């Protein structure tokens, strides 16, 4: 039975995962934090924290708040910067068998390209996930992910700057995610991941003020799952590259829903906070399910729920 998938089949040597279960950016640190609790080498891939050119302090606290079946966060890309990452983290990853993708965010097209160039030389980096969608950073972030032209521009610049597999991560805060997906694929993305978080907020009725220090934050978790799933279903029908489904996945059943909606792989985010073993449990669960169903290759069920004429 095979769980293996390739997220960059159009590019040598591809981005081969031994299984389609990744952990999402910002929810697994640099991969080292959970090492004591989770057998991280079993994961399909790890996407590390959002990384910028220079180190960032991030947003004021409070930075998270719970909502019904959801989590709002406004971390604001606190990170050590790409150079420290290449120096301190990538050498650790180079010894791992699990591929690590670096999630990057820039404040301009040039910054995106520069980060990608710096990563290109780093051993231990298996690919780049371009965050054109972070809703927390006023400059860059949001504005570029909601506009097909800008999103394509950033994609092309990153594509140009690196030979690594490039996956572009889309924001769901748009009227028509398919048009953004098509633009980004046209600009050279090897794969797409979707979705990032939905812009939301919560008000503390005691202080009569927004609870988060940054006023708004990004909503993740099971609450957003049905919307994320619909977007994956739409995008998977529209683009020829692998799509990675993210958003509210908590268990094998929800992972299977995304695969059947056309996702070649999935990412687990918020659920890791609830149970650090979620991703590993899903890997086991997918294997068991395939066996019960008598299916020998996970790729057979990718897109099983898509319209047959698509």
């Amino acid at each position: 039975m095979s769980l293996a998938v390739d997220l960059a089949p159009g590019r040598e040597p591809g981005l081969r995962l031994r299984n389609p279960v990744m952990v999402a950016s910002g929810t697994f640190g640099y991969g080292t934090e959970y090492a004591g609790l989770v057998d991280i080498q079993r994961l399909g891939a790890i996407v590390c924290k959002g990384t910028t050119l220079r180190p960032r302090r991030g947003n004021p606290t409070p930075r998270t708040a719970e909502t019904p079946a959801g989590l709002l966060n406004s971390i604001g890309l606190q990170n050590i910067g790409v150079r420290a990452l290449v120096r301190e983290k990538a050498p650790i990853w180079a010894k791992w068998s699990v591929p690590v993708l670096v999630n990057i965010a820039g404040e301009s097209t040039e910054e995106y390209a520069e980060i990608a160039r710096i990563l290109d030389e780093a051993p231990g980096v298996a690919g780049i996930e371009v965050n054109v969608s972070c809703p927390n950073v006023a400059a860059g972030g949001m504005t570029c992910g909601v506009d097909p032209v800008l999103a394509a521009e950033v994609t092309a610049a990153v594509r140009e700057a690196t030979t690594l597999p490039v996956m572009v991560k889309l924001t769901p805060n748009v009227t028509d995610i398919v048009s953004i997906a098509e633009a980004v694929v046209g600009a050279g993305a090897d794969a797409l991941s979707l979705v990032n978080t939905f812009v939301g907020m919560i008000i503390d009725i005691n202080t009569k003020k927004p609870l988060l220090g940054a006023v708004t934050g990004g909503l993740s978790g099971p609450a957003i799952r049905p919307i994320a799933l619909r977007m994956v279903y739409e995008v998977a029908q529209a683009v020829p590259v692998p799509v990675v489904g993210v958003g509210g996945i908590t268990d094998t059943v929800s992972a299977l829903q995304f695969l059947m909606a056309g996702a070649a792989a999935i990412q687990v985010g918020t659920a890791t906070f609830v149970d650090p073993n979620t991703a590993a449990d899903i890997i086991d669960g997918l294997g068991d399910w395939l066996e019960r169903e008598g299916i020998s290759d996970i790729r057979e069920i990718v897109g099983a729920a898509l319209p047959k004429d698509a």
Partner: protein
Amino acid sequence: MIRTDALVLSNTAVAGDIFLLRLRAPEIARDAAPGQFVEVRCGSTLAPLLRRPISIHRIGPRAAGYAPDEIALVIRVIGEGSRLLSRLREGDTLDLLGPLGRGFRLFPGTRRVLLVAGGLGLAPLVALADEAIAHEVNVVLLGGAETACRILPPQYLPPEVEYQVCTEDGSLGACGMVTNLCPPYLEWADQVFVCGPEAMLPPVVDQLRALAQGGRRLPVQVSLEARMACGMGVCLSCVVETRHGLKRVCRDGPVFDLTEVRVW
């Protein structure tokens, strides 16, 4: 640090809306240190979603009749998560992740400790009192709360502890903030440990500043609260400004030297 299903041995309403949960959790009891916490899953459904950080209140203190594989938590009912915890019954299981964070550090030479608790800040300080007593250290515990029904009754503390309480409404003990009780004991103690709302820190800092002017610099450790999502140092939700930059309360703390987080 592990994830485990602890067995609920008992759940007792000890005061107002405060509950004492005794749990069998061998690995956590074995590894925990006073001041550390666990991340607790409050139910089996997707709402409430996140685990809740809860301080470890007792770590199998034999003198209090605990078995060595037991821990205790105290829960005050605030919202949905704590309400679900308050309804646990003997025989239920509770999904824990822990022990987490860096606990209190009792120095080898210390003979007299002052513990200052605001509200449920008392929870982890009792584990520290147990340890101190085991090392024959003298313990004064000052406990304050808004009102009498939020004060842990003395029978739930080791008898060796000198326990002074006060309430903001004067319904039990002295009337006022717990920090008002500190001054005489600051002269007496070798080490001070504070746990409670942020608002306790400024008066403590003021008192320490006065002492420092008299040439006495007391080592003070403080346990901080922060909104947490992962509890594991991953998400960067719980950061606090320190002398050495942003630190994570869940992993670099919750216990910090007061000098790390406040200047005086």
